[in-house]
């Protein structure tokens, strides 16, 4: 089944849902689905005998300014076909239902997206920061993120030797010390 047919099948299965099928500027045509229907659509994609998208190949998050996007790259080991879904949520309230119940492997991907992009996966059983310390402020992969000046009294930046250097004449010193 080709990728577009899969997406069309989804659209036919869920009439009345505001889908958006996009084929431009991408290698895989994708379907933008409303956030609140994510879990149901994903369950259909996994369970439908023609689709059987049984693996969540990748879950990414993209900061697109006012909108944060969650991208699901799905794959079926049975039929060997791909499918891509996108969920767009406003930056102010980035709430997406978790797909952990559909693909258990999504748990850590969602934790990563929460940690680095600040997307709130509702219903996730263990939504903690994964890469960064628990008391880190902000979500670094957002474009407007500014690094903290210091973390627990430790500076997060150091002097660049190249900028400090013109003051001292390092190679000369080395010769003397030798």
């Amino acid at each position, binding site marked *: 089944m080709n990728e577009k047919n899969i997406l069309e099948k989804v659209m036919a299965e869920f009439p009345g849902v505001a889908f958006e099928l996009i084929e431009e500027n991408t290698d895989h045509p994708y379907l933008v689905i409303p956030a609140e229907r994510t879990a149901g659509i994903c369950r259909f994609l996994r369970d439908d005998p023609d689709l059987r998208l049984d693996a969540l190949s990748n879950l990414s998050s993209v900061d697109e300014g006012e909108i944060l996007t969650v991208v699901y790259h799905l794959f079926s080991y049975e039929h060997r076909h791909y499918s891509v879904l996108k969920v767009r949520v406003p930056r102010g309230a980035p709430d997406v239902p978790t797909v952990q119940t559909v693909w258990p492997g999504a748990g850590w991907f969602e934790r990563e997206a929460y940690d680095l992009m600040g997307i709130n996966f509702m219903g996730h059983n263990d939504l903690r920061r994964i890469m960064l310390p628990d008391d880190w402020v902000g979500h670094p992969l957002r474009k407007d993120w500014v690094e903290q000046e210091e973390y627990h009294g430790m500076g997060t930046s150091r002097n660049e*030797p*190249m900028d400090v*250097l*013109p003051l001292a*004449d*390092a*190679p000369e010193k080395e010769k003397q010390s030798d």
Partner: protein
Amino acid sequence: MATTASTDAVPGFRGTYFGRIKNAIISIMEGMSVTLGYLLQRPITIQYPDRTPKPVKDTLPERYRGILELDMKTCTACLACERACPIGCIKIEVVKDKETKKRYITRFDIDIAKCMYCGLCVDPCPGGAIRHTNEFEGSTSDVQYLVRRFVPPGERIEPAKPKKKEKEEAGAEGS
């Protein structure tokens, strides 16, 4: 002794009672003959740094990416290397003398501590001025000493005349 039934269900066990004893004896003998065989062979260790037949530096292949080196005589101050460096460990400052309308390099620093020896700066260099050496031992007592300065502070050096090739490069950059 009665042979126990196959215990495949128990994690980590397989085979019959005596089968396992037999397997253990044979496989352990196989393993021990391999290790004893190596005991009888020449070790392969290279005793760096003082007991090598010749200095390790000389045994490195030609393409080895060691500490960067610059030939000031051929540098055209095209800044291609500075642009190519992903971490910005190369700092070049060029001033233009207003009277003679000549360009001078007043600063060419490479921070070896920061350099990740990727070789991306060598590729675009038109005259082959910047290149990797076979030098890899860079330990010093202070990280500042790892900055290589190719223009002595306070001096200015006239860059070499760009050859034809550099113009192509410059053209390619614009596209």
